[in-house]
């Protein structure tokens, strides 16, 4: 099978790129971006900090503090670029890996840990930061995003919706239905597919025979493939797609061509199905290194700047760790909370019975 050859290492055709892996700015006829030095430095900071949060979460899982973690390693630029393209009023629908997008939406990283630690199933109000709950069932959220966008459309609001999904998800019925809905209703939605080459052990070729971005044309809307490790290009392409959506031009499919540099999750062992060479080749395209090279080469930042960000990242990592460890375990009665909005006789009955049962143990419930 094709998984015996390193995949995606040669840049595919039609790739929108504004910053090469070596940190050179390049022009693109359809997309360009003017960034101030401050903006570039700020993007760099985002990239480094989310990678640091992610590393800390992996470590916390290894030490038994989280049950699981889905690492974003390698996908920082796709997430920060697209996340920074969002306006405050835009709505984002993530999978379970969008920690970088959450960061851009000002969601406290510790909130992301709750589900993986097993203290809740999500734990935030989507309206607080216009960032929906993580969705584990592959592809479901694409339909929610389209429906949300249809609501935005009916309200006449000046906002767009973005929905994240993976290359694997592109095979799901829900995702294809979402494309159809978005298309026929001209919904103000951006489909942001992070093609990280893998769906657990399955290479992208098991989900599609044509480049994913070209699926869009069959559904009747534009598709574009962007270098997912290029934060400038991801920002520019997403900005344009969001603007088009807000202006009534309907959906766009963005395929961010990137690479899952880590295991699928902390439960996964990628040595069983992919070559180490592939990872090595993709390391040369690291999304953070190229921004650093660009800043350095153009003398937009000095060593002190980089050192300071590393310090900030370490402090953030420590803070995330401390607050993760301090997260209280939920009480057993939480099992019955928020199941229904209205009073519910069966819930009341089961809760009462169970709490009485627990109270019968020594220590009054804590077993």
């Amino acid at each position, binding site marked *: 099978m094709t998984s015996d050859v390193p995949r995606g290492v040669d840049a595919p055709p039609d790739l929108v790129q504004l910053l090469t892996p070596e940190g050179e700015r390049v022009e693109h006829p359809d997309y360009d971006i003017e960034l101030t030095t401050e903006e570039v430095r700020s993007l760099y900071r985002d990239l480094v900090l989310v990678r640091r949060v992610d590393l800390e979460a992996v470590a916390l899982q290894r030490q038994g503090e989280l*049950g699981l973690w889905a690492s974003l390693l390698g996908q920082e630029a796709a997430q920060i670029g697209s996340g920074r393209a969002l306006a405050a009023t835009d709505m984002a629908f993530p999978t379970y890996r969008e920690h970088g997008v959450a960061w851009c939406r000002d969601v406290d990283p510790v909130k992301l840990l709750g589900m993986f630690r097993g203290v809740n199933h999500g734990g935030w109000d989507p309206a607080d930061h216009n960032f929906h709950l993580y969705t584990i069932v592959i592809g479901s959220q694409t339909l929610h995003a389209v429906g949300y966008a249809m609501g935005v459309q009916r309200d006449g609001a000046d906002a767009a919706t973005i929905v994240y999904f993976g290359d694997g998800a592109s095979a799901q019925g829900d995702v294809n239905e979402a494309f159809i809905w978005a298309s026929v209703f001209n919904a103000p939605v951006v489909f942001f597919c992070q093609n990280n080459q893998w769906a657990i052990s399955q290479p992208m070729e098991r989900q599609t025979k044509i480049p994913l971005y070209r699926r869009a044309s069959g559904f009747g809307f534009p598709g574009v493939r962007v270098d997912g490790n290029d934060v400038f290009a991801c920002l520019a392409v997403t900005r344009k797609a969001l603007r088009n959506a807000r202006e009534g031009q309907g959906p766009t499919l963005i395929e961010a061509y990137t690479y899952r540099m880590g295991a699928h999750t902390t439960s996964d062992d990628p040595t069983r199905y992919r070559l180490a060479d592939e990872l090595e080749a993709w390391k040369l395209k690291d999304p953070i290194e190229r921004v650093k090279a660009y800043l350095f080469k153009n003398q937009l930042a000095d060593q002190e700047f980089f050192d300071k960000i590393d310090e900030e990242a370490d402090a953030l990592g420590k803070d995330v760790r401390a607050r993760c460890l301090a997260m209280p375990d939920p009480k057993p009665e939480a099992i019955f909370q928020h199941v229904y909005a209205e009073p519910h006789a069966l819930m009341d009955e089961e809760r009462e019975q169970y709490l009485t049962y627990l109270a019968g143990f020594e220590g009054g419930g804590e077993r």
Partner: protein
Amino acid sequence: MTTLTLGKALNEGMRRAMESDPKVLVMGEDVGKLGGVFRVTDGLQKDFGEDRVIDTPLAESGIIGTAIGLAMRGYRPICEIQFDGFVFPAADQIITQLAKMPLRSLGALKLPVVVRIPCGGGIGAVEHHSESPEAYFTHTGGLRVVACSNPVDAYTMIQDAVRSDDPIIFFEPKRRYWDKADIDLAAPGLPLDRARVVRPGRDVTLVAYGPMVKTCLEAAAAAEDDGRDLEVVDLRSLNPLDMGVLEESVRRTGRCVVVHEAPIFTGLGAEVAARVSERCFYHLESPVLRVGGFSTPYPPSRLEEYYLPDLDRVLEAVDRAFAY
């Protein structure tokens, strides 16, 4: 005798099924090179090739829908659903098509499709990875539903399921995948639709299946200290139910407690309780009692030890049965 884990026993059973019938296929997400996320299909693709062990695109409705078509061509697909919570995208194909197509053909069409589903909680997983969806399927005419509880049964039940001409939903207790037992690989198993008394006893019949059988055996061992002799019945088949074994047992013990991880409310225990009450009414010393999950979504993992029935919850129900 060979010592195998439950996961390996399933693997060995599928291997034998594939060896003895070239029409047997394995299909699902990550079942090939990876051997499935629980490694239950480990090595099968290497030995039987990619035509017979199919890594599918990521789409559960597609897995079952295409398995139906393959079955129409004479194949016998074993479909793996990666986790219990992900069978729902396939529910349409299972309930509206797989279960009903044979009848619509007046019996001409046979759909020997096995749908393997790792089920239940207790492994500290995130949402959708700890469900017990059996009642959705036992409520659907046209499907046989079975659950294995131990390596010995797993080995023969999977082979019997593949041989059956009916569609079968095959539940595997994921937290028991690593339990070990000695297996005589040549010994035939109990027929697929039969229940088994796994521990004889005089005082109460505990009825369980899948992951809860072990819990009930532990409860029975603990009850010995209180001088109570509990019988444990492993249903094995959830649809149909083996009423013969159940009736015989409850008539002897006069008390019955049904245990499952799934919510009690309209769960399989309700069916067992109603049937046992109807058939053993004059032999019962107490109502049939149920121990199970709450009627809530499965909780986050830090609460699952509260949610899941355990030895204490089973014994508390036994106490209540004696209190009548």
